[in-house]
């Protein structure tokens, strides 16, 4: 294995190259741009034998990926924020069409106001589309995740598109040491051709994506749900297999950090899990048993694994890097839903933090744990917007 210092974006581009992607269609948007620039270099130098379609919009990027995947090619695109929202119609299309496209989303806040900085609103806005949604913590994981994503997406039990999320700037532009797997290893792990549940085949003409009347539409949509349930199993299988091949195991659907004897937990997705782990270590040194549950997948939502991981905890803080006005915390709501039917469940307190790239440090995570314990004492969970200037922001 070759070791290099790569940014999160460069790691994604390398994953795309190792996965032998055949068609790339992408439109630039900060902070995704260096992914597509790197891929363009690979293609230009002949290191990646792919057709790079420099489309004129993100909607066209996903449309071109849909066309390419329907034609039997392994397809990739990447975007952020506005670009993801713009292509949303086609994002839904890719899942309904059961096409194993992989897309890297470099998570960035949505406008207005304009912000190029990190939050998770973009990806979470697409949570109903039927895409598998995975979240990387490190550049190494981002590289591995792109390869794993194709493996999961193309599995015959799944055949759904997969989103690899990485935090804008915080991960996309941060440089870390990365071990690049050998091409031969990736070739063994990832079969060369996408499977053929259907390919456009001139010798077997079919019309794809026709009208389905009310007597069949529900069943077609429910198949996406069934595929997503299968994806949960496949994600774990694939992580296990990758672990055997490379020594790098990430925990499957969730990563559990010091959870076994934890009395309080931090639940979140993305690169700030690193800061949360630092806070957990610091608090443990002071005698508080803190654990961190990092959601590697939010779709399928890992309800069972989550419930297992929080067993024994008195309280959990769900830290959401997005805001769904009126709800307001997407992840907190999904965690509560997952735990609702359990006989014993911890107090769940939701925190909205870090929107638009606002910095959240280990000290902040420690404070969040403190606020959670306070809520536990009062017996009331709720949701608060952490660190809102000028006061307000919830019942914390």
């Amino acid at each position, binding site marked *: 294995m070759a070791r290099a210092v790569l940014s999160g974006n460069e790691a994604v581009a390398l994953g795309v190259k190792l996965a032998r992607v*055949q*068609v790339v*269609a992408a439109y630039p948007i900060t902070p995704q741009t260096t992914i597509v620039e790197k891929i363009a270099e690979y293609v230009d130098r002949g290191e990646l034998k792919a*057709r790079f*379609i*420099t*489309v*004129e*919009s993100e*909607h*066209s*990027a996903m*449309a*071109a*990926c*849909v*066309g*390419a*995947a*329907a*034609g*039997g*090619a392994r*397809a990739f695109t990447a975007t952020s924020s506005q670009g993801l929202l713009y292509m949303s*119609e*086609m994002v839904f*299309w890719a899942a309904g069409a059961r096409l194993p496209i992989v897309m890297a989303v470099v998570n960035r806040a949505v406008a207005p106001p304009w912000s190029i900085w990190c939050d998770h609103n973009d990806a979470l806005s697409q949570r109903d589309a039927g895409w598998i949604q995975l979240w990387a913590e490190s550049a190494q994981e981002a590289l591995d995740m792109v390869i794993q994503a194709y493996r999961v997406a193309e599995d015959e039990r799944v055949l759904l598109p997969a989103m690899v999320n990485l935090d804008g700037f915080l991960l996309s532009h941060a440089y870390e040491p990365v071990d690049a797997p050998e091409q031969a290893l990736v070739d063994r792990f990832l079969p060369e051709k996408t499977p053929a549940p259907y*390919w*456009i*085949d*001139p010798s*077997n*003409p*079919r*019309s*794809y*994506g*026709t*009208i*389905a*009347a009310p007597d*069949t539409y529900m069943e077609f949509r429910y198949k996406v749900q069934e595929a997503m349930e299968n994806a949960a199993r496949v994600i774990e299988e694939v992580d296990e297999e990758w672990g055997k091949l490379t020594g790098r195991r990430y925990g499957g659907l969730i990563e559990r950090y010091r959870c076994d004897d934890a009395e309080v937990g931090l639940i979140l997705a993305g690169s700030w899990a690193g800061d949360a782990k630092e806070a957990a270590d610091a608090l443990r040194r002071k005698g508080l048993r803190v654990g961190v549950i990092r959601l590697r997948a939010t779709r399928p939502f890992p309800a069972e694994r989550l419930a297992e991981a929080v067993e024994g905890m008195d309280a959990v803080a769900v830290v959401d890097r997005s805001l769904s006005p009126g709800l307001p915390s997407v992840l907190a709501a999904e965690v509560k839903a997952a735990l609702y039917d359990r006989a014993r469940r911890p107090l769940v307190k939701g925190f909205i933090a870090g929107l638009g790239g606002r910095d959240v440090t280990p000290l902040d995570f420690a404070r969040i744990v403190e606020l959670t314990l306070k809520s536990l004492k009062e017996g009331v969970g709720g949701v608060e917007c952490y660190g809102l200037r000028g006061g307000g922001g919830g019942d914390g």
Partner: protein
Amino acid sequence: MVTVRELPVEEYWLPGHSACPGCPAALGLRMLGKALGGRFVLVVPAGCTTVIQGIYPRTPSRVPLLNIAFAASASAASGLKAALELRGLDVPVVVWAGDGGTVDIGLQALSGAAERNEDILYVCYDNEAYQNTGIQRSGSTPAGAWTTTTPSGKRERRKDAALIVAAHRVPYVATASVAYPLDFVEKVRKAASIKGFKYIHLHAPCPTGWRFPPSKMVEVGRLAVETGAWILYEVENGVLKLTGRSRALLDPSKRRPLEDYLRLQGRFAHLLRPENREQLERLKKSVDEAWETVRAILERGGRVF
């Protein structure tokens, strides 16, 4: 020029489909299939042809057909062509899109694909409104036409889609009409033999949307050409030539009066009333201007730009 007898007998768009009686899009699809001998794949955005296919599990299409979202046909076709090439399959990819999905919501993707010179054939079947959703105006609706969203007649002139595409300097652009199917077949065959971006704008007189009896569909299409309202031409590598019946109509005195075309259509009925004389003149002016554009092009040796 191919003759009727030389066309393949095979049908590649099977009878008993969902189109209205007398549908020009259906006729166009039959001719497209015969032009290419059933060896091509179709990309079809939202529009009449989505519904003409009927409902799962049946389709009239004997060639592979990818249905796609309204704005996305040119991009989806670009990706599809790339994939087929990577598989070593040398099969034409043909977009079959309505005027809505071409000059309005689909224009950006069309322009992008043309600028990239994608190796696809884009056919726009133009029934001059959003017919599938119930006859609302499009950027291709002619001035003066009644539609549900222009109840007093459209005030604006239409976009000239063929010239817009020609401005991208692609290898082949043509106009055609379902009333002149052999001319259309020749153009499809010529286009398919060229590498790069090809565009054919196919006039498709819609009985349902234009308000005339289905039996008159081909006659209305013929009158469009005979009166000069629709011009048949092709642009090969930037050089324009009139084709078929239009070759004889550069001289305005050879064209039948526009009223001969308009009076058959309910959507233009109001234009023939004296109080709407101004609207009628605006439509006639737009027809004359289209011919003046062609004349000026021909006078400089056919160079469009």
